[in-house]
């Protein structure tokens, strides 16, 4: 009797509260990483920027293919080699109703350098500006110390705040939601740390108005949890579908999936600095008398021994694009001629023999295990492939926080890294990863292999002082071709970004990995 009453209670409560459908004009999105700050200038962290992209605008922005397009600036050009002029959009209003002018731009660029205690400041992208000059309310000029073609790319990372509202605002004011006024498609409503961000449509947005009146970004870093939230209807869309579940999601008639090649490339650095590399020995475990990776043939052999298609189908469930490039097509600097190295086991063995390693050698491969999609499984697969070619390979993986410190001290022989060309052109990969290490020039900061090719350096330097886009792209393509033919690093694949939505919601997938509510549409 009691039990029956209990059952009745359950059923009635299910009928009344079990199915709470959200309002049609609301969108709830499950995002996959924690959001640490609401101050868009505090730290250059991807998840934080993902929220800022909703509320604030930039002078220049990237389209879904990571090509530069106008945002708050209508056009930009160089007046002389060291002066850039930006024409600003007229009639743009901040969320509080005030007008957007050049003074807000100057203020925002200056604020970036004044944030206390930032562990990852945006100053990296403003330091090229030697001085700025407001010509009139809608024209602004930036002087650079030397010709600097990447200024528009750099400025695509800086969010513009209202000078009037944010003049004395601290990071804590932003976290408390007191001063979050921008010009973006959504207005800030509420931030519950570790839980959610609430947004409302900006009815006076100058561009295409979003389809949603209210948006909730739920913070769901745990993969099964995020997926369960979508399956149970708690959210309408999620980013980063866990790879093991992809097939099931695709088969589910109530869900849609969206994919796009990411700007992120996964690759391996090979130690080309030390005369004896720390983690390679001969087959008996004794030190080698030379560093095999200094020999181009060994580097080629490694690249040939890796079956990128097998990794794509077995490890990545199809969510990777095997590559021989640094950036995917159609990004600025992509080289159509650089195709992924073909799997050629015999060729690899032959090259190893020619290089004086007919029996191969022993190697330990290092990789992070919590940073990139399936990073530890990829390392395992690559190790087995190398072992088949004669390079008996062990794998050591560790969390990124531990890994990064060791790898940047050049302690490893073969180390995995992922790189996203976040400003939308290939020099943002070429300069840190492949240029000869020169800290004073800001080059080679992540060149863990210490690959060095003076010919490539010269071409890259020329590209970096060439303002003309066509000419510069040709130079960047030449630099990339030189370095990649030389196997300066061993490219593996570009990740493929994924989104899943409930039927009836469509997304325009993006190369830069951002999940933007304004890009979701009801069907």
């Amino acid at each position, binding site marked *: 009797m009691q039990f029956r009453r209990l059952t009745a209670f359950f059923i009635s409560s299910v009928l009344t509260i079990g199915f709470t459908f959200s309002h049609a004009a609301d969108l709830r999105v499950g995002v996959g990483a924690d959001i640490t700050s609401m101050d868009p200038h505090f730290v250059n962290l991807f998840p934080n920027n993902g929220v800022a992209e909703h509320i604030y605008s930039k002078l220049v922005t990237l389209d879904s293919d990571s090509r530069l397009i106008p945002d708050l600036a209508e056009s930009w050009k160089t007046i002389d080699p060291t002066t850039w002029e930006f024409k600003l959009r007229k009639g743009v209003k901040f969320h509080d109703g005030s007008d957007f002018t050049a003074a807000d731009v100057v203020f925002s660029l200056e604020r970036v350098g004044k944030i206390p205690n930032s562990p990852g400041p945006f100053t990296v992208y403003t330091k090229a500006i030697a001085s700025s000059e407001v010509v009139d309310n809608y024209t602004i000029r930036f002087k650079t110390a030397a010709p600097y073609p990447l200024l528009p790319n750099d400025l695509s990372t800086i969010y513009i705040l209202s000078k009037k509202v944010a003049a004395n605002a601290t990071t804590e004011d932003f976290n408390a939601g007191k001063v979050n006024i921008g010009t973006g498609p959504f207005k800030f409503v509420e931030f519950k740390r*570790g839980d959610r961000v609430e947004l409302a449509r900006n009815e006076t947005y100058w561009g295409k108005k979003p389809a949603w009146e209210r948006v909730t970004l739920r913070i*769901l870093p745990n993969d099964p949890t995020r997926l369960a939230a979508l399956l149970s209807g*708690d959210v309408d869309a999620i980013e980063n579908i866990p790879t093991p579940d992809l097939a099931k999601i695709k088969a589910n008639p109530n869900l849609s999936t969206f994919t796009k090649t990411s700007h992120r490339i996964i690759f391996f650095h090979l130690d080309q600095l030390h005369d004896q590399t720390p983690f390679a020995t001969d087959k008996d475990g004794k030190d080698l008398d030379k560093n095999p990776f200094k020999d181009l043939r060994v580097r080629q052999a490694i690249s040939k021994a890796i079956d990128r298609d097998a990794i794509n189908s077995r490890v990545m469930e199809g969510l990777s694009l095997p590559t021989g490039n640094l950036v995917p097509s159609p990004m600025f600097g992509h080289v159509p001629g650089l195709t992924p190295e073909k799997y050629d086991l015999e060729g690899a063995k032959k090259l190893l023999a020619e290089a004086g390693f007919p029996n191969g050698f022993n190697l330990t491969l290092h990789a992070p295990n919590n940073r990139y999609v399936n990073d530890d499984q990829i390392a395992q697969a690559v190790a087995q492939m190398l072992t088949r070619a004669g390079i008996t390979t062990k794998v050591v993986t560790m969390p990124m926080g531990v890994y990064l410190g060791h790898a940047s001290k050049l302690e490893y022989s073969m180390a995995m890294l992922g790189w996203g060309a976040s400003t939308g052109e290939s020099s943002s990969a070429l300069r840190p990863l492949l240029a000869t290490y020169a800290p004073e020039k800001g080059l080679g900061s992540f060149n863990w292999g210490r690959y060095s090719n003076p010919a490539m350096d010269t071409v890259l330097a020329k590209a970096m002082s060439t303002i003309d886009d066509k000419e510069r792209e040709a130079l960047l393509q030449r630099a990339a071709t030189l370095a990649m033919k030389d196997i300066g690093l061993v490219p593996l694949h570009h990740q493929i970004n994924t989104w899943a939505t409930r039927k009836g919601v469509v997304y325009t997938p993006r190369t830069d990995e951002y999940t933007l509510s304004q890009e979701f549409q009801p069907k």
Partner: protein
Amino acid sequence: MLTIILRRMSESLFVLLLMSLLVFAGVYAIGNPVDLLISPDATPQDIEQVTKALGLDKPLWVQYGYFIVQVFRGDLGHSFLVGTPAIELLLSKMPATMELAVAAMLMASIVGIPLGLIAGLKSDSWIGKTIMTASIFGFSLPTFWVGLVFIMFFSVELGWLPSSGRGPTSIVLGIPVSFLSWEGLRHLLLPALNLALFKLALIIRLTRAGTQEALMQDYVRFARAKGLSQTRIIGVHVLKNILIPIVTVIGLEFGSVIAFSIVTESIFAWPGMGKLLIDSINGLDRPVIVAYLCLIVVFFVVINLAVDLIYALLDPRVRFGASAK
């Protein structure tokens, strides 16, 4: 009484000092958080400049000394990742974790003690055996798996309860709580149950063992001979005697529920301190890690003290023994 409290406090100070030193050295050895957080396009100079600004370029002992000085000023440092004071960050997350922990312990005790009593009294009947068998599952099934099964079953398949997150909160005595609204309770049920299961099994087993032992004791036989009702024997005499070990365990387990609700919080996206700790460890956010662990040490000390005080209330021997000295 006062001496007990004072002695406990001085002991815990030592533990705090030791623990903070260990965490400091540990996180220091792992690496520089700036490497993780700075823009990929940053030059080594940029990294050096930021490292300096955060004081991370100094040797370990200088950083630790500075930390200790600041602690005496009541400042546990600013979070690197978030920029706000670490303790403020923790305190803002504490109500959510406490709410979950209290709900879980309440569930475990309210359900566990009666079930344990029944299992102890009727250990040979099918009901006693069923309870004991069920408690084995509570013990042996891993929390994260049970949590996922809960979500799959109650949220995805049946659609009865929300799959994750915390419901709307209302302010009570300055603390945001979610258990006062229906929506909040619906969000709370699954994670609290998930967290309670292991403790529930533990309490059932403890109560059962205690009951069985007590039933053999002379005082129970005398009570029976005296003609007292079964309800009074169990409800007053047996229960009071077996409560001492149970209170101890509930107390200690309450501490561990707060400290280790991490798994449940991650799976149910519950915005509590456990989730914050995981994020802080991944981001090498040392001030938050240190502050979190300090807070947990303080919790354990306070809980142990409370347990001791409750002993005195429950057990006359403790009360009179203390004053006889």
